């Protein structure tokens, strides 16, 4: 236990290091986890042959960016698409969060679950399911009569692809909004009401500024997810004429002759966009929002009959569009035996094949479950700690560390996977985790720690450090302050972060494929393999099982964490 008094008597270097120990530790962790592979990637983009010890072709890749046909429109498309997805997610998600946090809507548990289910679907499986529903002669046409051609044309366009992506990610926004609103104290609103403020004034002067950090942080997650998403535009985008940067990068890394240098150079463009989004949203949030407060039991409005119905209808409508529609297609396909016309005869063989104990499918499921569990658990504790240390640090270091932690989330995962291989398979690494299951765990934590960081950050910004100061004046060690003062306050947002991390790790595909040790499968790679082999039914069956399992975890989690007594 190091106290300030004892530190002062030590040699200067030691005392400097010990007062800054947390920041240094965080910096070291981030540099090793994210900085090191990213640096190797960046070097590769500058000197394509550097890993072989040669310095030829300096900046050649960046010159070739300019020569790449259609690069401008690709960059613009990516930006516009990610931006529109974020806005649409806000429009869909904020009312959900509000209804959950601030009203006595019945069936909140189920409403909350309905938000998380769409996040569980692997994006390309979701996109494929929508195609099965919406395509010419698809389920819609068969069951509801011919679809208007205008609707179909709209669906297979920019806005259709945007809607699909937003439907897959508005849950992030809703959960973050709920968490933020739930901790905004009632007394501020009561005070405003007593001073004669109208509902609109209260909203403008109190609710929105206090919510902005959460709004921007969740929006940032959606934005980054869309910016680096490959699945949805890859499946739907070809029909919607939507060339995006991640698809281009994926193509460069997986088609021969490979062009890793150009791919990494293009990835650094994506990073630039992501950093602008990160610092921009932080700046906006601190400029327009802010204010510190202590959480308190939230105030809930009593909804009238009409309002309750509208609220439920909003959830139900979103549930139908985001879940029932694709899941119906997925389930039908997974039990399809023979297709006569557009509707098949049915069989459960595909499920039987997967669920047989000891089969490849069941092993893949088990691997995915514990990997997701471990990655989510490690991510939230590490993420909370990193976010805490960063938020209590001032100056450029704070921004640098924040940026570093965010970047792995935006680089197309195939490139990041290559970077991780370059980093951990290098000849100077004596005991390499590469080709073991630990590599996968490391990758998941590196990629998805951003979620925990963002969630924790949204709460930390409104947490008054006075309590921490009081604790350390009373002699509590740093660790004790973190575990007993900070962590309990972060609990609600960390639970949300655990769930989303668990879910996205369960479905992570691209990095898993390259980093998987031989002989091992995760459920996502299993699905993808079946899909590649043209065995759509088995792929869909596995997707359904994975989603069902994730849902069970969700339900258990939600029910167990239900009595939320504020600490």
């Amino acid at each position, binding site marked *: 236990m190091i106290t300030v008094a004892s530190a002062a008597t030590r040699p200067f270097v030691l005392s400097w290091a010990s007062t800054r120990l947390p920041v240094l530790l965080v910096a070291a962790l981030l540099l090793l986890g994210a900085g090191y592979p990213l640096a190797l990637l960046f070097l590769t983009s500058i000197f394509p042959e550097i890993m072989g010890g040669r310095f030829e072709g300096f900046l050649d890749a960046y010159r070739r960016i300019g020569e790449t046909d259609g690069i401008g429109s690709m960059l613009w498309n990516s930006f516009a698409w990610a931006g529109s997805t974020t806005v649409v997610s806000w429009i869909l998600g904020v009312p959900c969060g509000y209804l959950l946090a601030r009203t006595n809507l019945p069936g909140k548990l189920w409403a909350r679950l309905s938000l998380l289910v769409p996040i569980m679907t692997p994006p390309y499986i979701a996109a494929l399911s929508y195609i099965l529903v919406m395509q010419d002669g698809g389920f819609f046409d068969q069951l509801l009569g011919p679809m208007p051609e205008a609707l179909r044309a709209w669906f297979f366009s920019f806005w259709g692809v945007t809607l699909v992506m937003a439907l897959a990610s508005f849950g992030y926004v809703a959960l973050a909004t709920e968490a933020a609103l739930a901790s905004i104290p009632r007394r501020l609103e009561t005070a405003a009401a007593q001073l004669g403020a109208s509902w609109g004034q209260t909203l403008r002067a109190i609710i929105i500024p206090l919510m902005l950090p959460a709004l921007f942080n969740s929006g940032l997650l959606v934005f980054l997810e869309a910016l680096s998403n490959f699945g949805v535009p890859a499946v739907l985008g070809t029909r919607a004429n939507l060339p995006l940067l991640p698809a281009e990068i994926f193509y460069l890394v997986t088609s021969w002759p490979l062009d890793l240098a150009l791919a990494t150079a293009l990835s650094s463009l994506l990073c630039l966009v992501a950093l602008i989004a990160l610092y921009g949203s932080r700046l906006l949030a601190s400029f327009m929002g802010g204010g510190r407060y202590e959480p308190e039991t939230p105030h809930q409005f009593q909804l009238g009959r009409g309002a309750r119905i509208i609220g439920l209808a909003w959830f139900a409508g979103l549930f139908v569009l985001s879940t029932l529609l694709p899941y119906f297609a997925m389930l039908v396909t997974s039990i399809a035996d023979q*297709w006569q016309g557009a509707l098949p005869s049915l069989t459960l063989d595909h499920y039987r094949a997967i669920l047989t104990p000891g089969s490849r499918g069941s092993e893949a499921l088990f691997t995915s479950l514990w990997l997701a569990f*471990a990655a989510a658990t490690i991510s939230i504790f590490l993420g909370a700690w990193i976010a805490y240390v960063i938020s209590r640090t001032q100056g450029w270091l704070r921004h640098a560390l924040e940026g570093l932690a965010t970047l792995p989330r935006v680089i197309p995962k195939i490139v990041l996977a290559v970077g991780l*291989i370059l980093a951990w398979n*290098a000849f100077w690494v004596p005991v390499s985790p590469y080709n073991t299951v630990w590599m996968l765990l490391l990758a998941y934590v590196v990629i998805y720690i951003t979620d925990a960081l963002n969630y924790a950050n949204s709460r930390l910004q409104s947490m008054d450090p006075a309590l921490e100061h009081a604790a350390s004046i009373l002699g509590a060690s740093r660790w004790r302050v973190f575990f007993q003062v900070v962590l309990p306050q972060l609990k609600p947002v960390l639970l949300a972060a655990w769930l989303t991390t668990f879910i996205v790790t369960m479905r992570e595909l691209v990095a898993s494929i390259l980093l998987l040790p031989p002989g091992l499968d995760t459920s996502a790679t299993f699905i993808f393999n079946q899909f590649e082999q043209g065995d759509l039914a088995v792929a869909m069956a596995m997707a359904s099982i994975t989603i069902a399992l994730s849902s069970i975890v969700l339900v258990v989690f939600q029910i167990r964490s239900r009595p939320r007594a504020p600490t």
Partner: protein
Amino acid sequence: MDIRSLVLLAGLAVGLPSLTGCTGPSSNDDTLVVYSAGPRPLIELVVEEFEARHDVRVDLFAATTGQVMAKLEAERYRNRADVVIFASELAAEALKRDGRLRPYRPAGVEQTHPDWHDPDGYFHATAAALVGVAVRKDRPLGGSGSLDWPDLMRAPHAERTVMPSPSRSGATGDFLVNFAQVQGDELWPAFIDARTDGLDFAAANSQAIGGLVTGAYDAILGVVDYLVLRQQVRNPEVEMRYPTSGAAMVRRPIGILDEAHAPGLAEAFVDFYFSEFAQEAVAEQHLIPAREGIANSPERQAAYEGMPPILALDRSQALAAQNRLLRQFQLRVERAEIPRAIRSPAP
């Protein structure tokens, strides 16, 4: 949440993997590392049998050709693989030019088609497949006797035809490169017209095949046949056809990495891939076995009597053209803003 439960959680998170028993890699000399694209049941069967016969352990990485290439590239300066199997010989050719393969003459290679292999002996085709068209028998196109490529690229059939994206599906990409060699400059107007008449692109083979099986499309242009032949078993409405002017042949080469850690085992594995056992497993997956005297699968046997005509291919020219061609295709055809005729509804 107190500290004890935290420690418990963290311990659980980290402790679980040891329970599953999937621990570190074995870098023994008696371990062979195989990277393989292609049908997974096939490579798993071959690997299992090889392990049993030679009493060694094989670490298998099974993925698509693109993913195998990406992994090889990432491991360029610390190689891990001993043997690679691709679904495209252009990929193998690219690896050979990088100097990453070593020449080897497999035992039993004299019983295979000599012109399927690399003339310099750096890689050898273990199997082949044909890229042609798939149709539905209950739709107009399915009824016509002989088919050729242009039939699917013009109205009225183009609007109900789908093509796997050549930059995403390796086999379709190889077909397009081959088709471009045969067609020359006529390729572009032909495909732009096809697009105008309604040709769609799918992100993957399975998506195109799914569209055909469910009846959303009448035909697939440029699809690799073994996937369709497999579907035929379950969905008799679907049929593989070979265009009269020639199908493209895609071969699945095997090669040994120059920096292989277990070259002896690698050679034994390559030999084994040309054995009767492995070649029968190849045929089982509806691929054309490289070894002569191995019977095709019944589905393939039913699909054609004699071998259909094959489009001529200049491999080194194809490799040189491939990247530029596929990119041009993306820009000028797949993603181009081409006004399309309104699609008529499904029959």
